């Protein structure tokens, strides 16, 4: 069956350091992968999309890599700030009945300490 795995343990880092989060998947051949941010008590918010033919994507302090051979995506936040503290979810499109349904990993909690 298809699985999306993200580290369930919270990642604690110091302000100014680079945070790296991992998303691994099995039994998928996704055309793209997405990363979302979720704050406590709120709905997830879209951050970045990377397509299968792209190795790396950047947006301000965010960088995403996508290795379809390893079936893995890495999500980096450089110069992290306490405001970056949140849960980060990766999502893959799962084919279903002619459509593509966004399916999410459980997310990894990031805590940036001042």
């Amino acid at each position, binding site marked *: 069956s298809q699985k999306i795995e993200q580290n369930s343990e919270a990642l604690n880092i110091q302000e100014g350091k680079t945070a790296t989060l991992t998303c691994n998947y099995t039994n998928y051949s996704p055309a793209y992968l*997405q990363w979302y941010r979720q704050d406590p008590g*709120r*709905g997830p918010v879209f951050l970045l*999309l990377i397509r299968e033919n792209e190795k790396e994507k950047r947006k301000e302090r965010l960088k995403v890599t996508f290795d379809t051979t390893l079936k893995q995506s890495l999500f980096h936040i450089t110069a992290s700030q306490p405001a970056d503290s949140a849960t980060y979810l990766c*999502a893959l499109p799962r084919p279903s009945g002619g*459509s593509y*349904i*966004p399916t999410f*990993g459980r997310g990894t909690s990031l805590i940036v300490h001042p």
Partner: protein
Amino acid sequence: SQTIHQWPATLVQPVGSPLSLECTVEGTSNPNLYWYRQAAGRGLQLLFYSVGIGQISSEVPQNLSASRPQDRQFILSSKKLLLSDSGFYLCAWSVDRLGRARSGNTIYFGEGSWLTVV
């Protein structure tokens, strides 16, 4: 611009009582609509999705049901709530174009509804 509204934001319901959560999307037409649930400490579980009026696909067998009476309205219901129905319910939408879905279909979430079944 597109917006999504979901209500109520919070509710406490006794076991065996009915449930109705509503969601509407504005500023777009023929969206894909979704209901997700997030239990405490768990990931996002897709409950239902809809690609058009009256078209509902269920992902998980349970005592919940969904309906789409209008293009931009999505309703989650239950006739009799269970304790295990407690959680954070999220309505979401995405563009309904298969080509877009294949190449990158961003999903937009509502603010969520906290349901506590007691």
